[in-house]
Structures are given as C-alpha cells and as structure tokens.
C-alpha cells in the first residue's frame, strides 16, 4: 500500500513542474499514427503539427506561440479522454482532435470546459451547436471541423451519381452503402440513403464490410447480387483497398465511391483501381493555386514525416490549424485567448479563407447556429492507368444549406 501513496506523490510532483510559460497558449493534439486509422492519420496529424510549427516560426498568434503537444492515442477512446483530462489541467485553450469515436465521446466535456475541438471527424452530429434540429441527440457547441460533413460529402456523391446515371441512361440507378458496423463508416449511412431515395435512386440493403483489411469475396458476391450500380465505401485505407481488389477478382462491375478519407492517390495506387470517385475539400498537393506556396513552405519546414508528396489529408490538417490560429488572433484582440473567445472568433468572418492559403482552404462560414463550415464538395475521379495514378476533378457541387440536414 505504500507503493500507492508513493506513486501518488510522484504524480502530484510531476504536475507542478509543468506550468505554462508566460506568452504561449497550450493546444492538445490527438493523432493516430499506429492504430486502425493510421493509413490517413500519418498524413493529417503531421499536417496540423507542421502548420503550427510554421505559425510559431512566423510570429505565432500575434506574438503568442502555440505550445502543441502531440499524442498518438492509436484510436483508443479511453486514452483520448485521459489525455484530454491531463491537458485540461495544463490549461489547454483548444484541441486538435482526430477520430469519430473520441470526438463524440468528448462532446459534453469540451462543452462544459469551453474548449473548442477541431476534429478530423466530419460526422454531421458535430454540426448542430444548439440542437436546433429536433433530430439532434446532443448539441455540440464546441466542435468544429474544416470541410463538408460525411453526410454532406456523401450527398454530393449521390447527387453526382444521379446525374451520371442519367447521362448513361440507367433507368433506376441503385445505391448501396458498405462499411463496418462502427461509428465512422455509419455516420453518413442513413442521411445519404435518404437523399438517394429523394433523387429517385433505389437503395439496396447496406453490406457490412470489416474495417480491417482481409479477403472480402463473400461480401463482394452480395454486392454483386444487390444489383446496385453505385457503391459507397464508408471504410478507409487497407479495407477499401481489399474491397476493391476482392470485388475486382469476383467481377463486380459498379462505380465505387469513397468517403473523403477513402480517396487519395495512395489508395488508388495500392488498389490499382480502375475507377474510384471520392470527394475532397482542398486542392491536391502541387496544384497551381496561390496558397500552395505556403503549403510547400510548411512542408519544407515541417517534421518531414510525410515525404515530399503528401495526400490531401495533410492539406486539410493545415487548414484546420490555420482556422484555429485566426480565431485565436481575434480572441487575443477581444479579451484574450480563451476557449470561449476562440469559439466566438470562429463566427466573425464570412466566406473565410485564412491569409496565405488562398485557393487551398475554401471559403467557409461558421455561425452560432450552424457549424457546417463548408457546403462545397469537389468530386474527383482517381484511376490507375498504365502504372500511373491519374486524378481528375470532375465536378464541384454546392449543396443547399437545408435546415433538416443540420446535424444529420
């Protein structure tokens, strides 16, 4: 029993040592570099970290440096919560989060503690800050993310599919959702199916495909049997690659549409897919837009974890960090950098593009009643042709800001 009190004393001692310095603010950063979502986590996480490094090297937030602590929690929700508690004790003003599981678990904590969270989970549940939509289970006043929600991205894909089907002359196109029985793949499941039905598509019974890669021939046979022409893949990384491979073997001839995390050049490359349609909310690395120079500078000065050709997840990480930074700037001039002020800072600008990232981060609007920052979805087609990955932007869809879609 002595051990217990001894370890307590040790822990207590270590707490006093870590006091924040005068002119810096503390931001916690959850990443998954080693867990089930590491396939994309190893791009998004460095995006945030490198951007913060760049911000600090260029004057910080009006002279205040951002002290960022990055923790790889390997997608374990209890670990995320333990770290959150520890950070909260260190006086965290904002957090850069990651997955659907932990972000949703932290909703009520961050609301109570007034700490804005910029998650990489784009679950539509996080977009209703006041619970204005009666269907919202739990309002999420302190949750933000950059980009369209999973539901909105999927709706855009469905809208594109409906148009594509009309062009191809398919009478009654079929839509099918695949994904694991898991919060992340399921996030857009119902919303997207409802919209597909609204657009006159037949919605087939969803097929459960595990989030871990494997041999999915049995599932592919079911997909083939369903007769759907447009298959949405809610999983990411290895699982999507496996599904494309297995279905290729079995001979399932459909149009595959991926979630934003399921589509990047690495997925196309390793699956050697004939075609995969996926949404995006930034240009790809190296594309000719004014803000790309800043992204290149961030990459050059960064930790170098992502090589010289990061996927667009890296760029979304950069945008997420910059929106936070500009909100902090406003907060600093209006009463100091606190969680509550950062939240207010998010509502100030209209059609907001962070300075230096023109063309990279798309104009976004957050309001006190609506946290759907972006309703514009770019639709891309990735293909593996002659040993080369080819990605084309095929359409840009502006979704209406419908009230019944808020938080759903």
């Amino acid at each position: 029993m002595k051990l217990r009190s001894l370890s307590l004393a040790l822990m207590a001692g270590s707490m006093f040592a870590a006091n924040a310095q005068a002119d810096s603010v503390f931001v916690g950063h959850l990443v998954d570099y080693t867990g089930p979502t590491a396939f994309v986590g190893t791009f998004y996480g460095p995006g945030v970290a490198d951007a913060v490094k760049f911000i600090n090297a260029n004057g910080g937030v009006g002279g205040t440096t951002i002290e960022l602590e990055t923790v790889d929690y390997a997608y374990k929700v209890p670990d995320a919560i333990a770290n959150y508690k520890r950070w909260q004790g260190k006086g965290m003003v904002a957090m850069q989060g990651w997955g659907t599981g932990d972000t949703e678990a932290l909703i009520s904590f961050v609301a109570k503690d007034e700490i804005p969270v910029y998650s990489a989970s784009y679950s539509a549940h996080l977009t209703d800050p006041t619970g204005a939509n009666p269907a919202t289970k739990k309002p999420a006043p302190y949750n933000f993310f950059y980009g369209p929600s999973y539901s909105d991205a999927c709706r855009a894909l469905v809208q594109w599919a409906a148009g594509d089907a009309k062009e191809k002359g398919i009478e009654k196109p079929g839509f099918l959702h695949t994904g694991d029985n898991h919060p992340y793949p399921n996030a857009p499941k119902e919303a997207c199916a409802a919209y597909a039905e609204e657009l006159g598509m037949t919605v087939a019974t969803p097929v459960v495909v595990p989030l871990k890669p494997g041999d999915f021939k049995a599932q592919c046979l079911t997909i083939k049997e369903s007769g759907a022409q447009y298959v949405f893949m809610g999983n990411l990384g290895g699982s999507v690659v496996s599904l494309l491979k297995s279905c290729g073997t079995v001979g399932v001839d459909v149009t595959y549409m991926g979630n934003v995390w399921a589509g990047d050049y690495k997925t196309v490359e390793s699956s050697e897919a004939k075609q995969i349609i996926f949404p995006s909310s930034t240009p790809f690395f190296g594309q000719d837009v004014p803000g790309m120079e800043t992204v290149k500078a961030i990459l050059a000065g960064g930790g170098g974890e992502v090589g010289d050709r990061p996927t667009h997840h890296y760029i979304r990480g950069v945008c997420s960090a910059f929106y936070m930074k500009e909100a902090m700037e406003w907060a600093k001039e209006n009463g100091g950098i606190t969680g509550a002020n950062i939240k207010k800072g998010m509502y100030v600008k209209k059609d907001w593009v962070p300075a230096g990232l023109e063309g990279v981060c798309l104009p976004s609007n957050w309001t006190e009643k609506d946290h759907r920052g972006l309703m514009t979805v770019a639709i891309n087609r990735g293909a593996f042709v002659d040993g080369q990955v080819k990605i084309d932007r095929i359409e840009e869809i502006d979704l209406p800001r419908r009230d019944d879609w808020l938080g759903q």
Partner: protein
Amino acid sequence: MGHVPNPRPAGDFRTSYIGDTALFKTRFEGRAALAIILALVIAAPFLSNYVLSQLILIGIYSIAALGLNILVGITGQISLGHGAFFGFGAFASAWIVSSFGIPAIIAIPLAGVLTTAVGMIFGVPAARIKGLYLAIATLASQFILEDFFARADWFSGGVYGALAARPSIFGFPLDTDLRYFFLVLFWTVVSIVAVTNLLRSRDGRALVAVRDHYLSAEIMGVNLTKYRILSFGISSFFAGLAGALFGHYLEFVSVEGFTILLSIQFLAMIIIGGLGSVYGTILGVIFVLLLPQVMENVAASAAYLVPALAAGKAYIKEMSVGAAIILFLIFEPEGLIHRWRVIRASWKLFPFAR
C-alpha cells in the same frame, strides 16, 4: 495457485476461529487501510484534475479487476470476456436511466445486478467445461456481446453509443471530477470490503475448493455447478458496477471501448498484481494503468539519445504491456503482492534475510 508465504509475523498465533477470519490480518493493516482512505479524502480537493482522473480510473478498474480476480484467482475459472461485461454494465446503466427515468445513482448498482444476470447466462457453459475450452467460450461471449452493443439500438444506442449523464445525490450533482471521485471511492471501498468478506465466508471457501481441485470439492459436498455459475455472477456484478461508474464518468458510452484488449488488460492487472489477492489487484491496476504513461516518458527521453526511438514511442508503449505480462509470468508469477510480501519480510527479518 502457487505458494504464498505466510504474511503473519512469527509468534502471532491465531487463537480463535474469529481471529482467523478477521477482515484485517493485523491491527496495523486495518489502521493503514483506514489511514489511506482518510488521506485520499482529505487530499482530494488539492489534487490536480489529472491526478484525480487517474485515481478515479484506478478505482473503477480496481472494482472490475477485483471481480475478475474472484473468477480467476479464487475460483480458478478463466474469462476472456470481462471487458465486454464491463461494457454491458456501462450501457445497462445508461439504458436504465434513459428508459425508466431511474436516477443514475441507483441505476449504477442496478446495472451491476443486470450484468450479473447476463454473466450467469454466459456462465452456464462454464458449469460443464473448464480450462481452455472455457477460455475460448468466454472469448466467444466477448465477440457476441461486442456485436450486440453495435446492433442493439434500443439498448446501447447502436454504433452511436449512449449518453450517460453524471449522477446526483439529493439534487447535488456530481458534475466535477472531485465530486465524482468520492462516489468512486465509496464503491471501491465497498467492493474491497465485500470481496474480503466473501473470502472468509462459507461461499468463499467453497470457491477456493473448486479452484484447488474441482473433483475433491465436489466430493466434499460443494455444488460445482452452483459455485461456478455463482462466481461468474459475482465477477460480472463487479464488472457491471465498474462499467456503470465508467460510463457515467465519461458521460458517454461508446461501442469501441470494450474490446478484447480491455479484457486482456483486466487479466494483465490481476496477473501482475497477484492472483487471488485483493490488495495485489489494486497494485496490478496501478501498474498496468501507469506503465504506458511511464513508458511514454521513458521512450521520449531515450529518443534524445537514439532519435530512431522517437517514431516508435507508441509501439514501445504497447509493447511494454505485452512484455510486462510475459516477464511477470516468467520471473514473478505470483505478482507484485508477492514481491511486496518478500520486501516486508526482509525488512522485518533484517539483518537475517537478504
């Protein structure tokens, strides 16, 4: 389960049966336990949020691990599904609150009762099988329950999880970690006393008899089926109680939190702490909870010398858990509590012992 040295000092003879079954072996032990509880109560308001949250987690995991220790350490059964029962308790409490409007403070023990029922159902195969077959049967129950959580919208809220608001006592909300800490402390103490008490009762001795040799126990008149299922029930009760406390602490119950890894973690806690020992369980919980955090710091400082280690921090953290299990089983199969007894004995016998 191996040889445990007699913790009693020489010359301290038990002269009555009552003395032999006392809750605390020595008077000092009782005072020390009381002093630690008092110290925790007094110190709590001055602890940082982080320390408090660690203490709460230690309390919650201790309750669940105690339950597992009854099953594994005392009765000699094996369960690879304890994490799922822990999860069941968390969902059950949230479900009781939201469906029946019963206050959370009452729902927490009720969830334990509900989990007892489920544990007994899954314990039925245990009446017939043992050892490895039982291990695999409980592994199956782990996967079946996990699947059930993700599917049963009416019960668990499906994949979106369930909300579990913090309880309140007579209108006094336990909404800060400090207030919640006292609730967890209360249940931890109750559980420790209950388990210690169980061990000195007729039922406790029957469970130990089942562990030591089930056939001999049966011949001596112990109803095997009854006690095997009973021990599943008791262990599930503590798992459910702890799960409910965990759910209301996080205020949100997610289907992802209760995987096979959690079950393994519970097993690691009792093995590292010491099978069959109440205080060992608590030591094991502290060890397993703090080990990854300590390793994280160790790896971070080692990375200054060998930069290659920086990228492997997370892996080192995970590996340390596996390595700890292996090393303890090879070098200290009786757990930390045994080490503690050895240290205590050598202090007492100084300079006659190493």
